[in-house]
């Protein structure tokens, strides 16, 4: 016996079985979310103490109804369980089922059992057995299913110790398949499979390699040839797959007859009652609109307090550091580059976390599926899918997780269109840009005594985002052709009271992913910008003497300092860059300083504000005035009027509403569509729309 030992455990199960709850109970906060190599599927792993001497590494595999994947997420299950070279290849698989839907859950179980690896069946929500009128003969089912069965309740925390003990003694598992149905499907065909694969794998594994070759990443060239041969008659393969499912269910039915009975009690069903209201043809839509409005309202209202606090804290930290540290490039880098850069990321956390919180609650309660059900027909008119609603809503926080949320749209065309139009929705990175420009150019007055003009403009920008997403989807659906049949299947889970532990963990995870993903880009751009703004060619280095030479009048010290700073900025690398693009952006009403801000924000929109802050704090030594005051004070040297006037401001707002200025989005679209074609089309297309609409806007106002 080894003194200490680590067991690799995979959690597998249908969606809505409480698999993730069980994972959370087993691992607590000892979780790590990483990525599977090459694809951006979250890989959730956690440490679990099984006994004093044995520990476990638990991998929470994506929820799936079957080992045959219908999405990239689901293909992870197949790859992990088939590929024994995979670093996560488990010592033991725990299949999580839910007591109420045992029959359907067992389909996946029998598939995994047929792979002939140690398998434990954990039946969750066992505490509800009585109230649902379910009788269950554990011993008979254990014998029939050739597995250890553990009754657990992840919510009530029961059965967990028993499950851990079963995991520790996984070596005593019965490895024989439960539904060896291959020969019943087609004797001749499977004799052939057995022969060609030379018994290298179990028969069921060979069959999966044939049907799921595109998801299995580890096939040898020789095997590829064999698989290709078998797949030449694809109709037959598909027929056999259907037959397999039918046979599996008949095996499961036989087994369940011996030890599982449900007396469906009428009247206790809260589902029917809630569905009558929530999916009502009229009320359903009202309620959804109301819930959305309530969420957006609270996101803004609740987030404004921590955001103000973060804003002032970082500003104070900057000025404190620059006053305490000996002056020099290091102090400048900290106070003008790094700290405002980090501040620019941290400021988004409240909004994103609050929005993720609400979305997680909608998902946990089961309401999200009802929204999908209600919206499918409407969305389909525009080439989208009911499931596109979720990305479009999460897109108001951040397009990156939103685009990842398109994975459960099985139809490629509808999924692609959703990916392409999601960045039109107003994400939280646009907000600081909108907020500052609206504050500068739109008067803070009431319209008809009820509407705040600034608020109205903000709301219109949100509407523009949604409407243009829908229009773009419609146009795209006319151009993107596919001959793939459109299938739509979504489970309508039971309504559940949300588990706050699950919600909390989801919010933390998604927020962390945003902060570290987008954060890296924003921070590094801030530093690069600071460098470009405080360095330059010869004319920059000799600024002091050159400014002195130019002066005819005697200037006092203060005026001289200002002249010098302004001269330095114009001749820094970034100033030169801004000047170069000025002719291109002048028709939109922008000058070279805005040009700098726009260039730098092509990697991340929110950088616009911090760039303006950097430009103006490099230019003036007065730390006291806010960015808003500085922008208002900025004067166009040729017209002697305000630089940020109404036409320029509106033009900027529209430009930011449409342009795809987000390196994170481009990267995720490239990964999700597996080509540079779509992110390029998206980037250029949105850029052209932004330029034209901004040009029109500038000339209207």
């Amino acid at each position, binding site marked *: 016996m080894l003194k200490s030992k680590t067991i690799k455990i995979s959690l597998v199960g249908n969606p809505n079985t409480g698999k993730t709850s069980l994972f959370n109970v087993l691992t607590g906060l000892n979780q790590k979310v990483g990525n599977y190599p090459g694809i951006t599927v979250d890989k959730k792993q956690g440490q679990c103490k099984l006994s004093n001497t044995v520990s476990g590494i638990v991998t929470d595999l994506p929820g799936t*109804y079957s080992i045959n994947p*219908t999405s990239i997420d689901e293909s992870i299950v197949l790859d992990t369980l088939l590929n024994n070279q995979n670093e996560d290849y488990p010592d033991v698989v725990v299949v999580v089922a839910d007591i109420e839907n045992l029959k359907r859950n067992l389909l996946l179980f029998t598939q995994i059992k047929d792979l002939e690896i140690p398998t434990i069946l954990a039946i969750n929500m066992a505490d509800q057995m009585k109230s649902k009128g379910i009788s269950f003969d554990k011993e008979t089912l254990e014998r029939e299913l050739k597995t250890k069965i553990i009754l657990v309740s992840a919510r009530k925390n029961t059965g967990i110790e028993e499950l851990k003990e079963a995991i520790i003694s996984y070596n005593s598992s019965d490895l024989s398949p439960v539904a060896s149905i291959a020969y019943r499907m087609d004797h001749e065909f499977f004799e052939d499979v057995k022969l060609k694969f030379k018994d290298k794998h179990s028969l069921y594994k060979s069959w999966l390699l044939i049907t799921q070759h595109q998801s299995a990443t580890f096939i040898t060239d020789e095997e590829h040839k064999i698989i290709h041969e078998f797949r030449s008659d694809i109709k037959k393969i598909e027929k056999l797959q259907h037959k397999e499912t039918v046979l599996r269910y008949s095996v499961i039915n036989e087994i369940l007859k011996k030890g599982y009975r449900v007396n469906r009690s009428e009247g206790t069903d809260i589902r029917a009652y809630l569905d009558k209201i929530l*999916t009502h043809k009229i009320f359903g839509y009202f309620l959804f609109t109301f819930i959305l409005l309530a969420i957006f309202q609270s996101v803004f209202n609740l987030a404004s307090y921590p955001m103000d606090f973060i804003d002032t804290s970082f500003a104070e930290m900057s000025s404190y550091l620059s006053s305490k540290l000996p002056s020099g490039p290091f102090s400048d880098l900290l106070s003008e580059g790094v700290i405002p850069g980090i501040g620019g990321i941290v400021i988004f956390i409240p909004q994103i976390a609050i929005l993720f919180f609400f979305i997680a609650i909608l998902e946990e309660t089961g309401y999200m599926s009802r929204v999908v059900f209600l919206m*499918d*027909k409407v969305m389909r008119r525009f080439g989208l899918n009911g499931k596109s609603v979720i990305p479009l809503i999460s897109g108001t926080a951040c397009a990156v997780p939103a685009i990842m949320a398109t994975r459960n749209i099985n139809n490629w065309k509808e999924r692609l269109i959703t990916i392409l139009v999601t960045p039109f929705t107003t994400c939280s990175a646009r907000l600081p840009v909108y907020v500052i420009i609206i504050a500068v150019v739109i008067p803070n007055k009431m319209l008809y005594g009820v509407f705040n003009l600034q608020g109205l403009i903000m709301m219109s920008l949100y509407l523009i985002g949604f409407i243009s997403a829908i229009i773009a989807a419609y146009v795209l659906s006319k151009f993107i052709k596919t001959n793939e049949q459109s299938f*739509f299947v979504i489970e309508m889970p039971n309504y559940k009271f949300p588990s706050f532990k699950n919600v909390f963990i989801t919010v933390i995870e998604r927020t962390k992913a945003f902060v570290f993903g987008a954060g890296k880009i924003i921070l590094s751009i801030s530093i690069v910008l600071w460098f470009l703004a405080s360095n330059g060619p010869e004319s920059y280095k000799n600024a002091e003497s050159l400014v002195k030479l130019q002066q005819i009048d005697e200037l006092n010290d203060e005026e001289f300092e200002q002249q010098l700073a302004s001269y330095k900025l114009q001749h820094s690398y970034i100033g030169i860059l801004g000047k170069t693009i000025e002719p291109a952006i002048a028709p939109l009403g922008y000058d070279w300083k805005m040009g700098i801000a726009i260039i730098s924000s092509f990697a991340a929109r929110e950088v616009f504000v911090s760039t303006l802050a950097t430009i103006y704090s490099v230019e003036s030594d007065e730390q006291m005035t806010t960015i808003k005051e500085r922008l208002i004070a900025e004067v166009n040297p040729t017209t002697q009027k305000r630089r940020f006037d109404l036409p320029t401001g509106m033009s900027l707002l529209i430009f930011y509403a449409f342009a795809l200025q987000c390196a994170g989005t481009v990267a995720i679209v490239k990964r999700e569509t597996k080509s540079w074609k779509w992110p390029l089309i998206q980037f250029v297309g949105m850029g052209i729309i932004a330029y034209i609409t901004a040009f029109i806007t500038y000339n209207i106002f």
Partner: protein
Amino acid sequence: MLKVADMLVGEKGIITELCLENIPLNLLEMGCLPGNELELVQLAPLSDPLYLRIDNTFLAIRKETAAFIQITKI
């Protein structure tokens, strides 16, 4: 024999036939198989999608798919 696409809300039946070529595998895997009980729980506006109960599983599918599933009423 009745197509699921033509059912009325609240009607129940036993699945008798499926046109396998037009039905996604994952729908079968969720329990949509001959012999199982099916109930039309709810219709979305414009009668599409359909909210069904098949045995103990609740799910929604589009009308175009529902046209390929046949039941006998009970």
